[in-house]
């Protein structure tokens, strides 16, 4: 690994000024689990790292009935997974966080860092899209609040300006009739990265889907909402056939990537299966046959 200077700003403003001054030669480090890999393989050779480690304002997880959940950008995946608050209010988020990568990475990797790295083969973005999360960023131009869909621009690309850092992630309160699930498919049980993921938040009145938010992740260059399938489900009584048709719409509306983990057609099929089972499962329909997913 090439040598570099390790800078430890005490405020977000100071961090932002460092980023502005150093430009492309520097990288932000939070937990560092992804960055270290890139640097050790010399895919990234920054001359400076700007550490957020001293910015305690970026820590913590809080809930308010009106504004919802505030997750400090430096919250660890393990913090989210173990938080009684998150487990009680957003169980799908806690469940997702408990499955990211492996225990060691969950103890070091941060939610903010995960979003900024924008690696497609990861869990949080799709789950956060179904939860309609917002990403708060701060830089020399002040603070901006971006929807998670606006923040995730493309493969390894976010809407962050060069001098901006993510300070927090916000998730609005869920309606009382909402149910949600984050499901994913791994090529083998030992894989650390999903081949495909499906996140669903649905407002349910008995067997009727009042409203649904659907997102696919890991199968596509960036996670994305599936609005045609959402509209299809809205107001429908969910039967096994309806769940299957919604899953077909989702599978038709994505353009999966092909890589070592799987070819595009395989990913499309796995998305279809995971989506059908997840939607059916949320509406209490037995759906547990064939290929396993978690």
């Amino acid at each position, binding site marked *: 690994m090439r040598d570099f200077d*390790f*800078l430890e700003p005490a405020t977000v403003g100071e961090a932002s000024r460092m980023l502005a001054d150093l430009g492309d030669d520097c990288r932000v*480090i939070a937990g*560092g689990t992804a960055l270290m890999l890139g640097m050790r393989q010399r895919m990234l050779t920054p001359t400076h790292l700007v550490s957020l480690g001293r910015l305690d304002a970026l820590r913590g997880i809080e809930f308010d009935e009106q504004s919802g959940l505030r997750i400090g950008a430096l919250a660890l995946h393990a913090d989210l997974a173990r938080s009684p608050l998150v487990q009680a209010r957003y169980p799908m988020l806690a469940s997702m966080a408990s499955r990211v990568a492996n225990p*060691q990475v969950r103890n070091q990797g941060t939610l903010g860092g995960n979003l900024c790295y924008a690696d497609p083969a990861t869990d949080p973005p799709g789950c956060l899209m179904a939860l309609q999360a917002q990403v708060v960023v701060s830089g020399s131009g002040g603070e901006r609040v971006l929807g998670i869909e606006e923040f995730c621009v493309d493969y390894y690309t976010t809407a962050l300006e060069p001098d901006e850092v993510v300070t927090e992630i916000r998730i609005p309160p869920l309606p009382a009739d909402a149910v949600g699930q984050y499901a994913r498919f791994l090529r083998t049980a030992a894989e650390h990265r999903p081949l495909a993921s499906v996140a669903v938040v649905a407002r349910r009145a008995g067997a009727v889907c009042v409203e649904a938010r659907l997102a696919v992740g890991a199968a596509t260059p960036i996670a994305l909402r599936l609005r045609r399938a959402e509209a299809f489900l809205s107001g429908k009584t969910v039967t096994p056939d309806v769940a299957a048709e919604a899953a077909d719409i989702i599978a038709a509306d994505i353009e999966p990537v092909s890589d070592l983990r799987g070819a595009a057609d395989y990913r499309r099929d796995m998305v279809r299966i995971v989506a059908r089972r997840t939607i059916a499962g949320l509406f209490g329909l037995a759906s547990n046959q064939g290929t396993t997913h978690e």
Partner: protein
Amino acid sequence: MSKHLIDITVNGEAHSVKVPSRRLLADLLRDDLHLTGTKRGCETGICGACSVLVDGEVVKSCLTLAVQVKGRAVTTVEGLSQNGELHPLQQCFMEHGGLQCGYCTPGFLMTSCAMLAHNPHPTEAEVRAGLNGNLCRCTGYNGIVESILVASEKMRGN
């Protein structure tokens, strides 16, 4: 390039070490402090042979910069035994076929140590899930899982 004087507690002992920014925690432990129990395995964050505890939580020391653990308490495999007595996990790994070549063992011990601190009574499935970040290429894992389950019983006083 910047150097940093870091204060760090390792296995209960305070150290003050001057390191370049790029020094990894694994290298600080092995090369500066000569604690060679922690292994460098894949060095790409996959195998978990370099797992150590930082403030009680397991991390991969090959993905951690030494400067990131400034002021914190690190526990390595050398810190497990107390007063010449092996830790129950170490004893159980010996007795239940938890190792063959032994290279991955320090990592498995540290991961399982943190696992049992969080969950003193894990199911077999929970043990297997908790070992997701560690690779062993000799044992096939059954011996490791059994070692941890037996150790968890011992540590609960059964």
